């Protein structure tokens, strides 16, 4: 059962790190999976695989490529050869930078998002502001409620909310 799950995971999860872990921790260790790999008896024998691919030894007698390379260099210089592109950073660092950039964008978004204001201002935090709105009283369930009026500095908006008194 576990073998099937691992095989399914290996097929479905495209992340190479996960696949490598599955290979190391299961496929190469589980007796039934290793036996399956050995069905064709010499698949694991690297000699057999070498029959499938070309090896440098087959081409020891090739003519020297020096004249061809010299010609290529002439052509490339004539065409204004471009220098090799080097990767800026190793893949892991690039991912880390992308993650950091995403985190900064999220934080900035949360900071400037209109709904991100921190909750009601308590009595001790409230500072005197110019008010063009006055609330005499508000009652909730026949009890006087704590009333707060906050006016945004830049925007012309006034917030009024109330809470029932804590008993």
């Amino acid at each position: 059962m576990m073998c099937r799950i691992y095989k399914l995971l290996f097929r479905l999860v495209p992340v190479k790190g996960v696949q490598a872990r599955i290979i190391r921790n299961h496929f190469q260790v589980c007796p039934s999976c290793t036996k399956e790999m050995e069905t064709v008896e010499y698949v694991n024998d690297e000699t057999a695989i070498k029959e499938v691919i070309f090896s440098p030894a087959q081409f020891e007698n090739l003519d020297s490529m020096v004249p061809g390379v010299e010609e290529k260099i002439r052509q490339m210089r004539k065409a204004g050869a471009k220098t090799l592109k080097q990767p800026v950073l190793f893949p892991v660092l690039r991912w880390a930078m992308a993650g950091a950039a995403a985190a900064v964008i999220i934080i900035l978004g949360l900071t400037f998002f209109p709904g991100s204001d921190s909750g009601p201002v308590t009595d001790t935090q409230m500072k005197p502001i110019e008010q063009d709105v006055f609330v005499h009283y508000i009652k909730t369930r026949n009890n006087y409620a704590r009333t707060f009026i906050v006016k945004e500095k830049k925007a012309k908006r006034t917030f009024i909310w109330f809470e029932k008194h804590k008993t």
Partner: protein
Amino acid sequence: MDDERLIISECLEGNAGRFDVLIIRYQSAIFALGMNILGDPDEAMDVCQDTFAQAYINLHRFDMERKFKNWLLGIAVKRSLDRIRKKKSFLAFFDRYAREGKTSDHFKTHGIEESVVFRQFLKQLNPRERTALSLKMNEGYTAKEIAEVLRCSENTAYVHLFKAKQKIKKAYTAAGKMENTEVKP
């Protein structure tokens, strides 16, 4: 490796002829890699010459702390994969010869006898898997060294190798343990 650094230093000082030593030293390895990725001797030859030409032009950018062969193989892999991406004729080439069943003149010129086994099995792999397998089998590279050439993570290189072997296993099973046979014209 020290003599390579000496040769490269001499090239950079203006003794261009010394680069020939490196070409002759590594041409068979680069050509074999090109054949494993591209499957066509003419394409492989072109890529091989391109690789050495690029290496020569950019020799001033080579990091002496690295192995020159790794750097060369990295250039060859990139050129080969770019070529496949542009041409997408690899499978078409093999399919054509599978149908006609004859060895191309190019193969004969280079003394290379194509085998049915090669055509059938290697084309099951994608270019990166062929690259990883070629580097593993011919150069004895570890997953880490393959990752350096392929410019990917070690885990990715490891998975490429595993999948390559798995696909060859399937092809072997389907072929019923086929022996090497030479294609006759």
